[in-house]
């Protein structure tokens, strides 16, 4: 049950659930929240902060097969643009050997793994690529 929706339905602020403002929640009655002796039951504040969960996004439907498809291989420049050269070279050779109808395109991101590269995304769309391989990180 969505407790936030229930609270909203009842006309109560969902902020109560998060513990803000600070006065929204008091220590349970009858339990010491001050400095107790060893063995006493005490109440302490919670240092943790609730994290906001990401909105779920579904994956794009898969391909039926790789026949005559174009696969865009995106080299993210993890630890440098040359670090994955052998890897992409070998993947390309493997594809050419095992899937002769598959076209492969290898591209290195201009902005590195931490940046964004809108021109690359446009290039992928313009190439009419059917799928992408992104990497390599580690």
């Amino acid at each position: 049950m969505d407790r936030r929706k229930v609270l909203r339905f009842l006309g109560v602020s969902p902020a109560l659930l998060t513990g803000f403002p600070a006065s929204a929640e008091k220590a349970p009655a009858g339990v010491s929240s001050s400095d107790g002796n060893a063995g006493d039951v005490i109440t302490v504040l919670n240092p943790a902060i609730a994290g906001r969960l990401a909105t779920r996004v579904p994956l794009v439907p898969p391909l039926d097969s790789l026949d005559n498809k174009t696969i865009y291989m995106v080299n993210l420049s993890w630890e440098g643009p040359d670090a994955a050269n052998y890897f992409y070279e070998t993947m390309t050779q493997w594809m050419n050997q095992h899937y002769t109808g598959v076209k492969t395109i290898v591209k290195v991101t201009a902005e590195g793994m931490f940046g964004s590269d809108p021109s690359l995304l446009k290039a992928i769309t313009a190439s009419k690529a059917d799928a992408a391989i992104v990497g390599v990180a580690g």
Partner: protein
Amino acid sequence: MSRWAKQIEMQCKIPAVGVASSNIVHYATGYVAKYQTGMPIRYVSVPFPFTGQPRAVDVGYVTGKDMLSGRPLMTAVISALTSPLTDEEKISGAPPEEAVEPRFLPPDSEENLRVLFDDKEWTDFNTIILPTEKRVTEMLKGTSHKPDEVIKTINITGGARPLTVEKVAINAVMAGASPEHFPVILALATQAPFGNSTSSMANMVVISGPIRNKLKFNCGTNAMGPYNRSNAVVGRAFALMSKTAGDLRNNVNAWETLGNTMQYNSQCFGENEEALPEGWDPLHAEMGFKPTDNVLSVGTGWSSIASVGASQSIYPTHYLMRDYMSSFCASGSAATVVMDPTVAGLLKDTHGFSTKAQLSEWFSQNITKVNASYWGNGVIQSTAVPFALQGLEPYASWRKLPDDALIKPFTNSKAIHVVVAGGKVQTMWFVTDFGIRRGVLIDDWA
């Protein structure tokens, strides 16, 4: 990595599969999917390490097994792109219920609560002061700011967690601080969390202004050692708030492969402003603050190298500093030199550096590095190579130079800071690769 795969899926409308080592995949499909992307990215996994390997190793990875499924890697890649989606992979929209953290923890014994705090990784595994309501209320008296004021949103690994004044007060209590420390710790909270990178970063916290003396921060002998309460508790509070507010947990979303012992208190110390040579301004004054302002400055870096022994007349001190600094990666041209007042005096009186800025400029002009060594650093590869690829200078030109060419990697002297601390016991110094950001006015948090 997941961000890139998600962009391709959403903007190009094609399926994408990521290739990464297993720790990256673990993080990406767990924490990142939950708090950042919301998308269960398709992944296959290769062994670690991936970078810096000879051709035969990378060939072996491609022709070898997927570490996740155990199938041949390329078979797994094709399967990821062609297999029907699972129900989990089809989910869209807002999460069913937002996460909640109650303000109070369930009542328990002190012993059990200590175990809980350690189990949750909310501590640095040294004994903490448990944050009872009475103690936190007392801590909050150290500031005029309201408990529910949000200082910043911590989103380093996702989750967009609002760090409030009260949450900082809880961490300040845990660290053993007193209410008079609280404005300093709140100013420090604006810089949270501490460095969190597989490259094993750490931080440096420098206190400037009259508050150093008022709160008895150690700026003299043992300034950077475990001999002073204010240095210890303020620095420790930074570690605790970084972990709790950032939800940083080992092998969950904290992936510093070696970690860094400097994270325990982030090298918190005060500058020995009273011992500065004439003409050498305090750190915060160099940033444009008034000398009477109380300021806290945070740097991020990895390492430091010590002079080890006393300065020698046969080789000028700044030459030795230069030599040692040439081993740093020079990312962002950043460096910080921490020196005893006696060294500052030598540099001024014997070698003629009448200001800190002159010394920084000398370093910028005289530190050289072999080109291949510069580009051989992983951080430089990840940060400066994109600049070079975009044609930005001097990176684009440096990339075209021969491996053995000498470059001057500290291009911005203003990013080289000089801080004076210590007790005049030895002509001692540290050169570090810490890049100090602009200071924060502590007085704003009183």
